[in-house]
């Protein structure tokens, strides 16, 4: 509990750092958001119109006033107004987040469902041909960038089967689950492939580590079946590194998968942030980066708490 409190106490500090960093960085991007929003039409604005637009979005104030207002707003749950969407930033983020969350969950399910059995299989067939096969595939998987795999999948589908991945208007899960799944399954496989490869490698090496421990040998010598040794004795301890890896990877995926969203034309968080940066949509960039950083920290905290659940010997906060 003490540990949890201390960890939570560092959250505001790190978030403050993130907020300052992103606030300063996005203001260093050359150009202004009103010109970026209106394009060539910005030239048609009279100075008075431009001033009132700037005042509306609050970008006419000195930077410290802007920062102060922004932080004040956050404490009231108000992340500001997006210049590009003309709507509250939090609304825009929350509209994009379900897709990103769903994609991250699907990728993780694929990664764990493929990676863990593969890793355990390889560990129990250590140094055999099948182990080598799994290791080679995992190594190739880990070295395949998501955009290479994504393009290969699209190419194979279109050239081999004459079909294209389901794109077009995105269907939320609760409105049209089938269409939603058909839109997300290929991106999830694209992201899940390298993720599965990492899970395979880490679960294999964790399992090998545990299988050579004394308590596993004791269990074997007492006549426990191979199945029970693996599932009852070895697996719970081998899970810890797998949880760490998956947690961190999941945390990153919650930040949006910019490139995969780009390839499959998905309206997720990653593409929104990329567009917001390019459009100099200050409020949206600031708000979404803060949102992503917060999620990442929460996931990391949950991973740490999961250690305790998996291994009661671990007492967090003690060095």
């Amino acid at each position, binding site marked *: 509990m003490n540990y949890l409190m201390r960890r939570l106490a560092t959250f505001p*500090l790190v978030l403050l750092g993130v907020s300052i960093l992103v606030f300063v960085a996005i203001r260093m991007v050359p150009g202004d958001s009103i010109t970026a929003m209106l394009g060539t039409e910005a030239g048609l604005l009279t100075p008075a119109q431009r001033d009132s637009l700037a005042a509306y979005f609050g970008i006419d104030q000195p930077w410290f006033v802007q920062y102060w207002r922004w932080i004040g707003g956050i404490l009231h749950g108000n992340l500001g107004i997006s210049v590009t969407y003309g709507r509250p930033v939090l609304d825009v983020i929350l509209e994009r987040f379900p897709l990103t969350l769903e994609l991250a969950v699907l990728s993780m399910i694929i990664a764990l469902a493929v990676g863990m059995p593969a890793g355990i299989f390889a560990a129990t067939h250590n140094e055999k041909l099948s182990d080598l096969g799994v290791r080679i595939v995992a*190594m190739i998987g880990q070295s395949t*960038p998501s955009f290479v795999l994504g393009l*290969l999948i699209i190419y194979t589908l*279109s050239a081999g089967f004459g079909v294209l991945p389901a794109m077009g208007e995105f269907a939320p899960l609760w409105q049209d689950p089938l269409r939603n799944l058909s839109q997300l399954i290929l991106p999830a496989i694209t992201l899940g492939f390298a993720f599965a490869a990492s899970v395979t490698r880490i679960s294999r090496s*964790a399992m090998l580590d545990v299988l050579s421990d004394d308590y596993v040998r004791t269990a074997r010598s007492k006549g426990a079946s191979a199945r029970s040794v693996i599932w009852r004795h070895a697996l719970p301890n081998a899970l810890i590194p797998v949880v760490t890896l998956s947690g961190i990877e999941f945390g990153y995926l919650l930040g949006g998968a910019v490139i995969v969203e780009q390839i499959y034309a998905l309206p997720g968080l990653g593409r929104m942030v990329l567009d917001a940066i390019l459009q100099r949509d200050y409020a949206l960039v600031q708000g979404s980066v803060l949102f992503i950083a917060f999620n990442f920290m929460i996931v990391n905290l949950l991973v740490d708490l999961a250690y305790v659940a998996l291994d009661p010997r671990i007492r967090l906060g003690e060095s």
Partner: protein
Amino acid sequence: MRILRAIFSHGSGRIGGVIVGVYLVVAILGMLGLTPHNPITQFRVDRLHAPNGAYWMGTDLFGRDVASRLMAGIGQSFTVAFFSVAFATLAGTVLGLAAAWLGRRWDGIVMRIMDVLLAFPAILLALLIVTVAGPGTWTSIVAIGIVYTPIFTRVVRGPALSLKAREFVDAARTFGSSSSYIVTRHLLLNLVAPLTVQVTLALAWSLLTEAGLSFLGLGTQPPAASLGLMLSDSRNLMETAPWLMIFPGLAIMISILGFNLLGDALRDILDPKMRRAPA
């Protein structure tokens, strides 16, 4: 020399070493302009030509030789990868050593700044930096360097802290060695092994990030060649000219594979704790 022998007697080290070696040669040839054709010359009559004797990997939409562009692109990607990892290694080592050696307040400040940087997803942080500074080779180098600095800081700080508490450091202090001597001679030299492994793996990530940035149009700028850019350009021509996608895609994949294999081998060789369970 001994390390080279160890790499070549290690199964995946041998494969990784050969791949990285071949890529280095290709990268140098590409950077020196020793390519079959000029990578930006447009052979208009031979646009979108499939691979043949004259164009080993075909030509692109503008009639440029894909093989030559690939070589130039590998040169470009490797330049960015090497310099950005050098940046991250140097910055991370200095910060990590400073945090560990100075301790207390400095440790707190440095590590909180690293926490802030780590809370950003890598590609987003790089994107933000690149947009601020404008796309280009040096921007990519600095952006990717900053993104990977926290990882090196952590890799250095942890072991440096435990080394600092060891008896030989106390002994050196008793003998009157200066702080800078202890840090460089006793701490840094003992960190070479974990750093070497990290550098090799970081080269793989850095290649990946560079390709990603270029893919999004924020890395290397046309008409210069880069693997990510070539891949991004291939998207609309996938069905008519699949070679435009396949060769750069494979080139990126195999280069990352090479560094990953080499990194794994180095970890087995240099880190005795990991030897028990090679992955």
